[in-house]
């Protein structure tokens, strides 16, 4: 047993970068999927809409913890090989991000009036160009505040990776707490670090939203 020292604090801070890695992985793979889902959900084809809806209902109908366990223990079942926790966690966070961002972006696309599509079509733009140059820029403005808000959700969500033994901030907190026997102090510090990482994003999302409402 030893008491909590500066070295412990630094090890917590350095674990924060693995939280960052998880967030980046989730965004890098989740965002393209989210765009695909948003387009499917707003598609004219029923089959596409239903497939995307079923996927969203399924992912948002189970706990993130369950999703993690499913992929963590599912990898050997699906692929026949053991995978490092990072892969399973990365896949679970990607699926989670895709489903929530997909819904947020669908909302952004639907918030753009349908006449905008028609006007763009009248100009002779192809369907992709209608989306890319007319709809997407307007939808982006609408969807940006909740997207930033979701980042906070995602940072907090990565704390669950600790449960399958991936060492990010929350897991580092558990390890330091076990070594120092000062759980309350350690977890308060961990909470403070998360708070310091999330609050700026929350405030940013709020100011974006205020600016958006002012513009209307």
């Amino acid at each position, binding site marked *: 047993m030893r008491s909590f020292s500066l070295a412990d604090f630094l090890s917590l801070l350095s674990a924060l970068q693995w939280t960052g890695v998880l967030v980046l992985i989730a965004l890098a793979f989740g965002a393209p999927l989210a765009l695909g889902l948003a387009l499917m959900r707003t598609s004219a084809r029923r089959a596409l809409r239903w497939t995307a809806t079923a996927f969203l209902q399924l992912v948002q109908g189970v706990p993130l913890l369950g999703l993690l*366990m499913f992929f963590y223990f599912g990898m050997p079942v699906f692929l026949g090989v053991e995978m490092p926790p990072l892969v399973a966690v990365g896949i679970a966070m990607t699926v989670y991000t895709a489903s929530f961002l997909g819904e947020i972006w669908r909302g952004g696309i639907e918030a753009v009036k349908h006449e905008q599509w028609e006007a763009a079509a009248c100009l002779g733009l192809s369907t992709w160009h209608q989306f890319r140059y007319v709809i997407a820029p307007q939808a982006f403005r609408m969807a940006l505040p909740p997207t930033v808000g979701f980042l906070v959700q995602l940072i907090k969500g990565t704390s669950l990776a600790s449960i399958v033994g991936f060492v990010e901030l929350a897991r580092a907190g558990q390890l330091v707490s076990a070594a120092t026997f000062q759980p309350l102090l350690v977890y308060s510090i961990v909470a403070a670090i998360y708070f310091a990482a999330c609050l700026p994003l929350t405030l940013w999302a709020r100011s974006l939203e205020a600016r958006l409402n002012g513009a209307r």
Partner: protein
Amino acid sequence: MQTLNFQQLLRYQDQLIDGTLHTLLLTLVAALIGTAIGVAGAAAVRGGPRPVRWAIRGYVELIRNTPSLIQLFVVFFVLPGFGLRMGAFEAAAIALGLYFGAYCTEIVRAGLDAIPGSQVEAGQCLGLTRWQVFRHVVLPPALRSVYPAFTSQFVLLLLGTSLASQISAEELFHTGGFIETRTYRSFEVYAVICGIYFALVMIFKLLFAAVGHLAFRWPVRR
């Protein structure tokens, strides 16, 4: 490729049902605590003295910007410091209640803010008492605008109760861990657990949609 075997899980039917009931109980208790906090918090933020308003703002931001998992740990380790000896289940109910309360405060506040002051004045002009204004002018549209956000937050709470397993509160996810150590059928166990959560979520979503349909039938005027 390993073969799936769900057969062994059948023996643990009773534990699964018990875990499901505990998850529902935990969700309902946390929702009750959180709703009470939310209503009181929103009222205080709108009309309370400045220090109270700041305290509530701080609480809401603190909860919303830290992971639920860490909140559970902090509450679990903080309670004994106040001389409160509590089981993990009670600690989880308090932690999740505080968590739900913060979101609820924001939801209720937004619902009350959505009612134009002119409507309240109109009600007063008709000679309604304060209670009548609240009951007939403020409450129905406020409930209606709060309902979608509140019910989806409730579903998130239901899913979030799974975290309570990490402080060894005995709910559905904890039951999953128990069965896993007995059968070594990790994947099958968590697939079934996910299925149960999914079924619960679907039941609540249908229930909320039905209640919303019946309760808020009057047309929206914009």
